[in-house]
């Protein structure tokens, strides 16, 4: 089986949205869409599953809260319960208000940073990563839809030419 794909290139996000909807309706499998900026509603039109990043962030936040609580409890109450300026170090709850700023910041710190790292890992982004850019114009002012070809090359080409594409290319991927 050949591994051919079609690059349908558009120069307007509204036309792209229409093309995506038509492609979905015609049951052609969209491999990927490349856009220079976020197109509102594109994920819905493509039928992508909603992100679970927020759920991750919530769990990371709880982790941070637990870490902050454990850290302050171990250091200030268990390990060396010193009298510092008359603050009550008898139990965690006695001195809790003083620890709240730390607990809060740890929560935010864990939630934010771990969520960002999760995002990088899930979207496979890192400093020396080779860019997967099919056409340099997609970072500036063009939109590109990539669709797999299954022995229906001519049909697909004419289909995409009818969706308002400014350019339709067939590429052999290796």
């Amino acid at each position, binding site marked *: 089986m050949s591994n051919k794909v079609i690059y349908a290139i558009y120069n307007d996000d509204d036309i792209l949205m229409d093309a995506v909807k038509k492609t979905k309706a015609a049951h052609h499998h969209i491999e990927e869409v490349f856009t220079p900026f976020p197109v509102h509603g594109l994920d819905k039109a493509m039928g992508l599953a909603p992100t679970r990043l*927020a759920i991750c962030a*919530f769990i990371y936040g709880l982790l941070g809260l637990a870490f902050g609580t454990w850290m302050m409890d171990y250091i200030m109450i268990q390990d060396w319960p010193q009298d510092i300026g*008359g603050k009550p170090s008898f139990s965690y709850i006695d001195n809790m*208000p*003083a620890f*709240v700023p730390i607990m809060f910041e740890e929560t935010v710190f864990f939630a934010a940073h771990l969520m960002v790292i999760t995002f990088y890992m899930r979207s496979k982004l890192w400093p020396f990563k080779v860019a997967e850019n099919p056409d340099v114009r997609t970072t500036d002012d063009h939109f590109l839809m990539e669709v797999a070809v299954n022995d229906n090359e001519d049909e697909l080409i004419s289909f995409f030419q009818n969706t308002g594409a400014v350019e339709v290319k067939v590429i052999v991927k290796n």
Partner: protein
Amino acid sequence: MYTFSSKLKTFSFVLMAVGLLGIGYGFLTAPKDLQEVEKIIASETHGGHGEAKHEVSVPAGEVHAEIGKTNEVKEAAEHKEHTEHVLHQLQNKPWASLYVACIFFMLLSMGVLAFYAIQQVAQAGWSPVLFRVMQGITAYLPVGSVIFFIILVVCGLNIFHSNSLFIWLDPEVVAHDKIIANKSGYLNFPFWIIRAAIFLIGWNLYRYFSRKNCLAQDQASDDLNYKKNFKMSAAFLVFFIVTESIMSWDWIMSIDPHWSSTLFGWYVFASFFVSGITTIALISLYLKSKGYLENVNTSHIHDLAKFMFGFSVFWTYLWFSQFMLIWYANIPEEITYFVTRIQLYNLPFFGAVVMNFLFPILILINTDFKRITWILVMAGTVILLGHYIDFFNMIMPGTVGDRWFIGISEIASVLFFLGLFIYVVFTALTKAPLLPKRNPFIEESKHFHY
């Protein structure tokens, strides 16, 4: 046009009637003189209080006879002082519960008015479909202000010789209290009541003219009324933030005239602002469920829910900032405020944090939940009850001390004002179409989705 359902109308009348009966009961059962208080104290402690003290003063021998006598005299004086103190607290109780409910509902509609003004000035594109709901809720403001002002006058002139909610209004107290005497340039009846009148009149004038212009805009052929409202709202917000701060000193903080806090005004604001937004959400959900708000979709509700969530956190931030700064420094003249609350009001004091922070933050953090009616109604109810408790915590310790209880007078006062609130608000909603016609942002608002 909205029609006030007869069921809801009957319901509001029932609430008012039950409330009035309960309020009356509260006033009638409050003790009138020292003898009644003696009986109450005796029945509560079974003499334990007196006995415990007496043991100390039992003379061990003849040598101690003299000391015993002076102790007994001292004890008698102390006992009388204690009884008088309890009498004041018990007499304050029906007044304080009326005052808490009255100021809560009045400020709640004030919170809605502030939110409304902010929406006007911010030229928000989502909220114009809710303007008439907000105007309906603020219709309670004139009614609530009149009742509130009457209560202030009754307290101030000590009509009926009935209560001491504001102890600095008693010349006897001022004469013997240097701290209060030093504040009398600010805390004196004429100045206090004139300030109250100016604030209430100012807020009501804005409400009146803003609604009038909004209705006139429906019939107009240009945007002149809209622009007038924009300018007026901006001016009102400046007036509001100044008067709101002073209002919180005058009507709430001066109940504890020995104590002061700089962020108190913001704290009070956060409390009634989030209650106001919650009320907008609840009433919009009610009207929508009855089919009156066809242009309000789940995105509008979602936005309100986000505001409920955000301002619940904001309230907590201020609650904690005020508490933690005073707790940390532990300066005696400031810390007594929280000592009283933690020792005598432990459950309401920390319960308010659970209801106003922990519950909303866990429920309303979820995007999907912010669109589900029953979850919002549940969260909204908890938030409103929580902020009632918050006002309770601010006012009760300084007026009734350890004699607090959420009993007949407290619940009845809330029911009375709730009934009045429902009656006034839903009557006002019938007076104008629920959709503003020629607001420049109305089309955007109708099609708002998030």
